[in-house]
């Protein structure tokens, strides 16, 4: 490895450094405040590092491939982690001085995610995913009391490990068929291998998709989502929903494209079935859900169903321009989704905290009159999820519909439209609850004081709106990735 490669690895190095510093700090004097600041500084450094590394994009060994796209998403998920970190500050109050372990786990998990995003090899994919996952298990189970976090952690661990096993088995089969472990190598071999052992290759790919699909919680691998979302501490849920899912989706698209899985029609058919059922089932499941965390879980199922449309479309892209449009669509949608989800969880974290009862719809009655800022934040987030214009979610949906039309994926388009139409209902239910004006609620004066989380909410809300109403700069930026 030469120094240029080291420069390319700057975000990873920064995160590792943060982890090390955290450990050293813990060994000197345990102070959760200092740990928090170290972590925050580490994340900021990582973001700087990601920018720095843009001048050194290249493959680093066979394991990692640092490119602009990956660096952008690294930045994004580190940003998401930063938000999660800020949200975490108020949480886990019972854990007292032990919180620095949580920060260390958070850093390790982000490290896993960044590696996952930049992976170009099965080994790095596996390790990144597992690093992210193992740290997450502990983060989910972090609260000392309560049964739900533990149950969530167990469920996530077992199911996730099961999915990893599927993924690994799939890898093994693909390896057996192609004799290569790098994405590019597989892609190069795929034609020959397909001629030789089509079944093994396709089956292996299908198992890989199953394993990754689990992390994305697409139907039929979605069952864990609501329980884990609900049980996990809210900042961790936010982390899971944005960092984990985002990174896995990036890795999936990389693998899918570089290993040229799109050459198999049947795989596309299977993916289409998954996409359609996700779009519909996710929305149906959320329809009458009263717990906002579970609701967001179900809605995420649908959203990754929508995203799969882009993946399917890119398989049949006719031209470079079309492929560019589709990759822009993925970038935009994923970004919009991550920002929106963060905006939603920023509010949920503040309002619901770790009290499961406060996640219920009843706790949101009249929020507009109690916490206007929070209510506005959640409203904008929900509208963005629903794809109402002026929000980032709308432009994302606009992209996806465009993609579906350009690629003439009519069935998927129908499912997308149907799903979106159903989705409006449950997003509105919460908005309606927030706007309720019962006599007691209206009398309470809104809180005048501004908390740090309000600032987070406002920042995210502004981002979601800005991306929705002035998307051009971002589109240009995404186009260059």
């Amino acid at each position: 490895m030469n120094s240029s490669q080291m420069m390319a690895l700057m975000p990873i190095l920064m995160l590792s450094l943060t982890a090390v510093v955290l450990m050293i700090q813990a060994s000197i004097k345990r102070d959760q405040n200092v740990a928090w600041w170290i972590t925050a500084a580490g994340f900021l450094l990582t973001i700087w590092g990601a920018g720095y590394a843009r001048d050194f994009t290249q493959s680093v060994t066979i394991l990692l491939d640092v490119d602009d796209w990956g660096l952008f998403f690294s930045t994004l998920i580190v940003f998401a982690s930063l938000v999660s970190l800020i949200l975490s500050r108020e949480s886990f109050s019972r854990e007292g001085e032990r919180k620095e372990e949580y920060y260390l786990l958070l850093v390790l998990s982000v490290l896993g995610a960044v590696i996952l995003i930049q992976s170009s090899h099965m080994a790095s994919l596996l390790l990144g995913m597992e690093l992210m996952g193992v740290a997450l298990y502990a983060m989910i189970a972090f609260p000392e009391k309560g049964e739900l976090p533990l149950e969530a952690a167990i469920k996530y661990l077992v199911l996730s490990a099961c999915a990893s096993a599927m993924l690994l088995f799939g890898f093994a089969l693909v390896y057996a068929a192609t004799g290569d472990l790098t994405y590019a190598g597989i892609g190069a071999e795929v034609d020959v291998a397909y001629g030789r052992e089509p079944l093994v290759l396709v089956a292996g790919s299908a198992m890989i998709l199953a394993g990754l699909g689990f992390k994305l919680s697409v139907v039929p691998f979605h069952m864990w989502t609501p329980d884990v979302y609900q049980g996990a501490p809210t900042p961790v849920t936010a982390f899971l929903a944005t960092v984990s899912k985002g990174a896995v989706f990036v890795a999936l698209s990389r693998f899918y494209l570089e290993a040229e899985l799109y050459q198999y029609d049947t795989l596309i058919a299977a993916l289409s079935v998954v996409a359609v059922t996700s779009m519909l089932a996710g929305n149906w499941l959320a329809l009458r859900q009263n717990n906002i965390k579970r609701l967001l879980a179900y809605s995420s199922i649908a959203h990754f169903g929508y995203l799969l449309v882009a993946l399917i479309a890119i398989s049949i892209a006719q031209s470079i321009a079309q492929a560019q449009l589709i990759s822009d669509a993925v970038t935009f949608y994923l970004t919009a989704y991550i920002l929106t989800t963060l905006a939603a969880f920023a509010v949920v974290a503040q309002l619901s905290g770790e009290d499961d009862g406060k996640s219920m719809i009843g706790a949101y009655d009249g929020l507009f009159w109690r916490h206007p800022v929070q209510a506005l934040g959640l409203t904008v987030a929900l509208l963005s999820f629903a794809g109402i214009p002026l929000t980032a979610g709308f432009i994302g949906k606009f992209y996806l519909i465009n993609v579906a039309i350009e690629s003439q994926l009519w069935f998927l388009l129908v499912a997308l439209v149907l799903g979106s139409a159903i989705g409006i209902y449950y997003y509105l239910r919460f908005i309606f609850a927030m706007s309720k004006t019962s006599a007691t609620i209206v009398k309470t004066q809104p809180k005048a004081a501004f908390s740090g989380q309000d600032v987070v909410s406002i920042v995210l809300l502004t981002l979601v709106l800005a991306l929705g109403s002035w998307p051009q700069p971002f589109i240009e930026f995404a186009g260059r990735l």
Partner: protein
Amino acid sequence: MDGLNIPLNHILLVSTLLFSIGMLGLMIRRNIIFILMSLEVMLNAAALAFVAAGAHWGQPDGQIIFLLILSVAAAEVAVGLGLVLQVQRRFKTLDMDDANRMRG
């Protein structure tokens, strides 16, 4: 020694069987410890497949992945067993069907 005569698909057959058995165990056991064991079986089956494939191609990569799987398994088991301790403390049982508070 050489493994010239062992057909790859036989080894894969074994690993597939192991994988299926592990899956079966995962589905039927309710005790969290057995569930973790089943996961080990599945990971091991995948590892076997990797090593076999590596041997098939005469590459060290299969074994390296095996090594990585090993560390993955170790990390997961470590956290998993940590969770087992907490489960026992908070739920007073290891039966996962009884440790079920969330649904719907």
